[in-house]
């Protein structure tokens, strides 16, 4: 069935596949660097869409899980590099250990924060998720041992099953695979029984409760899943930049994540990825073009919010959904 949505999805997939060739043809690795970043932010955007788009849970603190994932990887590598065990553990540089660890840490934080935040709703939920993220931000600023405000550098990228992933193409494929996995997983989840409850609760919470669904628990589970995906993205980001800092958790970044999701299109699996790409390209172009980039980017964000709440993907999808 080749409607506009499927065609556009196909084009996005082809674009990701074509990136390395484009880089060779253009003779610059920067295309790969940029596309890798798109893939990483794409994961965050997809995970945030699960909450905001499908669950109607506007989390304004998603950067916290992204940052925690990054810090988990950096701290594990820091302890290994400096030969100081942490709680008797020597640390690790192996991605297959460090990345799941990053997801676990982010998921655990999401569990605690979600358990408290999901007791509230609406604007209170927006604010309390923001406040918790700020709390973690200040915590990392104060953590002098791990660099505090200066952040923490990784001496090398993680090893992936013992192999080096410093080559930008190798790393690109890893990030794109992670993105593909997250998109596929989200797609399955959202159509599963679990996803039906999550979406049903967004449509009518009262109804779902009256049917016997303990909505809180399902939302909490979604919150944890989204947190874990963001944690994975943070781990990848830390590897790409070989650096983490509290800035990863800042509220401005949480805001940017929301912008990506909406710019791309809420409640569409591929839309948030397109949103991440658009956001990065526009921001990187504008801030290179003028030091007063905020004066152009701000109104642009505003126009998207006011006039295109369905985002780019909404425009692509057009009349498909009737």
């Amino acid at each position, binding site marked *: 069935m080749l409607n506009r949505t499927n065609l556009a999805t196909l084009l996005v997939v082809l674009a990701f596949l074509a990136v390395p060739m484009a880089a060779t043809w253009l003779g610059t690795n920067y295309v790969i660097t940029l596309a890798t970043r798109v893939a990483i932010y794409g994961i965050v955007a997809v995970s945030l869409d699960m909450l905001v788009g499908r669950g109607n849970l506007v989390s304004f603190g998603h950067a916290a899980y992204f940052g925690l994932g990054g810090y988990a990887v950096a701290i594990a590598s820091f302890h290994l590099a400096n030969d100081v065990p942490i709680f008797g553990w020597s640390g690790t540089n192996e991605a297959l250990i460090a990345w799941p660890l990053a997801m676990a840490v982010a998921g655990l934080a999401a569990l605690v924060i979600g358990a408290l935040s999901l007791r509230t709703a609406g604007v209170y939920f*927006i*604010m309390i998720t923001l406040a918790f993220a700020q709390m973690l931000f200040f915590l990392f600023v104060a953590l002098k041992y791990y660099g505090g405000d200066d952040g923490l550098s990784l001496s090398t990228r993680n090893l992936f099953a013992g192999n080096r992933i410093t080559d930008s193409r190798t790393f690109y494929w890893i990030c794109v695979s992670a993105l593909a996995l997250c998109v596929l997983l989200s797609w399955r989840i959202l159509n599963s029984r679990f996803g039906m409850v999550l979406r049903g609760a967004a449509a009518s919470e009262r109804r779902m409760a009256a049917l016997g669904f303990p909505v809180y628990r399902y939302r909490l589970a979604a919150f944890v899943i989204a947190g874990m995906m963001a944690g994975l993205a943070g781990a990848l980001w830390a590897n790409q930049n070989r650096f983490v800092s509290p800035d990863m958790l800042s509220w401005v970044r949480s805001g940017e994540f929301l912008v990506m999701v*909406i710019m791309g299109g809420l409640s569409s699996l591929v839309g948030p990825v397109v949103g991440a790409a658009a956001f990065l390209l526009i921001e990187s172009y504008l801030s290179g073009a003028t030091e007063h980039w905020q004066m152009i980017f701000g*109104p642009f964000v505003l126009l998207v919010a006011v006039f295109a709440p369905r985002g780019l993907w909404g425009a692509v999808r057009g009349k498909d959904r009737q």
Partner: protein
Amino acid sequence: MQLFLEQLLNGLQLSLTLFLLAAGLTLVFGIMGVINLAHGSLYMIGAYAGAYAAAKTGTFWLALPAGLAAAALVGAAMEFIIVRRLYARDHLSQVLATFGLILFFNGFIAWSAGRSPLLIETPPQLAGFVEVLPGLRYPAYRLAMMAVGVAVALGLWWMISRTRVGMLIRAGSDKREMVEALGVDIAKLFTLVFALGALLAGLAGVMVGPIRSVQIGMGEQVLITTFVVIVVGGIGSIRGAFAGALLIGLCDTLGRAYVPMLLKSWLSGPLADGLGAALASVIIYLVMALVLVIRPRGLFPVSG
């Protein structure tokens, strides 16, 4: 004891400044259901307009009306051009649009006023200090700020409980039809309320001018604290904003003053200093989390 009293005064002064910001934000949310992240930008605009006027005229007493007018005008324009399109929209669109506004205003100020921090001269009449209690000197300007905060609180109370505008405000957004049935132009009322909120933010902006530096990004620093205040107080409630401002202002100041000292009594020096400062900077978020766990809709929840 004297130190404690001084810290208490500091806490109250911070509380009353926060209240000026929180009152406007909570009014706008309570009546129009709009969450306005750019409220901090209005505070910044008030401060910059005040600093500009002060630099041109050399007196604080002209900076004050300039800051108020600029904030109120920008606020009214913001409502008229943008915010009014967001009333019927979900919080997400509002967050996004006003996030865009923050970026714009920061860029605009950098472009038009430059990046140097500015300052407003303290009015000479208030430059000294007052002996509040024997031996306890307190800056006259901060006392004046507290007086303004109290006056605004009383004024708002009077307006809301005694005037026609206040009655309309109390009627709230969910009774829009009723208000319209009374022959009130609701669009005008909303613009008015938004401008009033902006005016209060501008007032706070000009008033902190002589104390803090006027700089880009000053709005965001204070915005999040203001959100904490209104969430703790109960969004939409002026009374809640006042209570929340008191709680947060006092917790923040006393936390910064005493948490490091308390920690020092059972931890070694440098560790206690660092940890104390870290703890002091997150204390308001801890308070907020605690309040919301016990009362998910804040201390003074607004019904409906």
